[in-house]
């Protein structure tokens, strides 16, 4: 059903808080995962059980430090637990779907609330903004309405957001539509009929501009994306992946923050990649010099093999990189091609099997038969 969350006095955030509070008070769920503003003013996801604390909830804060799918995983993965709602950005929802396939999260008894995302800032940028008078949320929502989304002057959206071609809510139980919406008339939402009934919503058509505005935003960002892909592809071709990642300090932050990298311990931190001192000496002798720590390019290439089919392009890896390497751009650019080979779109459908755990007998029948 399509409905509208009533907005009073133009306070969209308050309206959303009210919606979440309703979920708790009407016992639709027992707790909500939602970005909260800490007493010191930073923003972090939290699992909120007390509706009273939802006053600190701020689902529209344009800052993204981590991908919330990472935190939804642990709180949903096993029974027993109560029913939960999770407020997610589209890229977080897609990551969640991939994690569900990897059995690192569960959709059972989970109400996903996917909110259109006009764009986010990095944590440092956000902190600077906060120190300098805060974020102009109104301008952002106005941009979402028209499709002329621009970052605040003097700032830029996160690299991943600038080239995000899926900023709009797709999938999920509840979709909160900001694109093209006149929020003064209420926030358009799409939600299951039984939930709408439980919450006392009556049907209300969203205004018809959403598709048009989404198209506008997507096409602008796709253009940026393609330019950046072309640029990074050229670099990969010229410098090789070892060149692009030459400044890597092997902090593993990209892997640690990646919502898809779900391993308890990365292979590259396991004894398999611990070597005897004499071994390093051998390698040094073999090539004349040996880069330390060992296996840096192997790490990135292996990580590509392990997760690039599931890369949903949230870009937290880039933000996490202290060496300012274009990790997200590389992974997205490579991922686009590899995903296309298998006609796989990560996060599209939870029923879609991961490409490497399935196969068809009659595919690529020419491969391997060459003379």
């Amino acid at each position, binding site marked *: 059903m399509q409905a509208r969350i009533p907005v009073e006095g133009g306070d969209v955030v308050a309206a959303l808080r009210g919606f979440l509070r309703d979920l708790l008070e009407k016992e639709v769920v027992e707790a909500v995962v939602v970005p909260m503003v800490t007493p010191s003013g930073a923003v972090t996801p939290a699992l909120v059980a007390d509706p009273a604390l939802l006053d600190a909830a701020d689902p529209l804060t344009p800052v993204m430090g981590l991908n919330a799918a990472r935190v939804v995983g642990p709180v949903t993965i096993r029974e027993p637990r109560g029913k939960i709602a999770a407020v997610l950005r589209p890229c977080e929802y897609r990551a969640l779907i991939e994690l569900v396939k990897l059995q690192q999260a569960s959709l059972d008894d989970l109400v996903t609330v996917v909110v259109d995302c006009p764009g986010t800032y990095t944590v440092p940028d956000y902190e600077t903004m906060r120190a300098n008078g805060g974020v102009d949320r109104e301008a952002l929502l106005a941009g979402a309405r028209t499709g002329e989304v621009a970052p605040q002057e003097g700032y830029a959206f996160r690299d991943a957001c600038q080239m995000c071609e899926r900023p709009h809510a797709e999938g999920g139980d509840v979709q909160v539509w900001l694109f093209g919406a006149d929020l003064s008339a209420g926030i358009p939402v799409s939600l299951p009929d039984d939930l709408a009934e439980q919450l006392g919503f009556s049907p209300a058509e969203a205004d018809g501009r959403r598709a048009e505005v989404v198209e506008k935003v997507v096409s602008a960002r796709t253009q940026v994306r393609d330019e950046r892909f072309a640029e990074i592809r050229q670099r990969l071709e010229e410098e*090789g992946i070892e060149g692009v990642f030459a400044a890597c300090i092997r902090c593993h932050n990209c892997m640690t923050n990646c919502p898809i990298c779900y391993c308890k311990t990365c292979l590259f931190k396991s004894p398999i990649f611990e070597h005897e001192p004499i071994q390093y000496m051998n390698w040094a002798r073999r090539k004349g010099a040996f880069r330390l720590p060992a296996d840096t390019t192997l790490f990135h290439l292996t990580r590509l093999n392990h997760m690039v089919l599931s890369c949903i392009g949230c870009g937290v890896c880039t933000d996490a990189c202290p060496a300012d390497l274009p990790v997200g751009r590389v992974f997205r650019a490579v991922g686009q091609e590899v995903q296309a080979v298998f006609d796989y779109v990560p996060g599209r459908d939870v029923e879609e099997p991961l490409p490497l755990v399935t196969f068809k007998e009659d595919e690529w029948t020419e491969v391997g038969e060459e003379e």
Partner: protein
Amino acid sequence: METTEFEPKIVAFLCNWCTYTGADLAGTSRIQYPPNVRIIRLMCSGSVDPTYVLKALLDGADGVLIGGCHPGDCHYQSGNYKARRRIIALKEILKQAGMEEDRVWLRWISASEGQRFADTVRKMTEFLKEKGPNPMKREWAV
């Protein structure tokens, strides 16, 4: 100055049941092929980890050959089908990452195809000679 012809190094990951046995058959049939290939025996082409292939390439191997049973003949039912997807993905990643994916060959060679094994090694050796050494061989900063 004496110049010696470039002799490529090929690391081969062969499945125990088909291609490794096919390589043995090439031996028992005394079918000659270039000595450039170094064989590692695995139980199934479906157990060839991309990391092994990447490691070989980054270490400087000029080629990597992965040999498995023909589709439908896998000793473990479907290992080769999974290998096919995995190697296709790996090669696409290599290509996108600016590496030479054509140094990686996947071939189905049965236990009775000693000749095909020898031919494959010969062709791969010739191909790699033409192509030249793996640049990674000289690259210390990887």
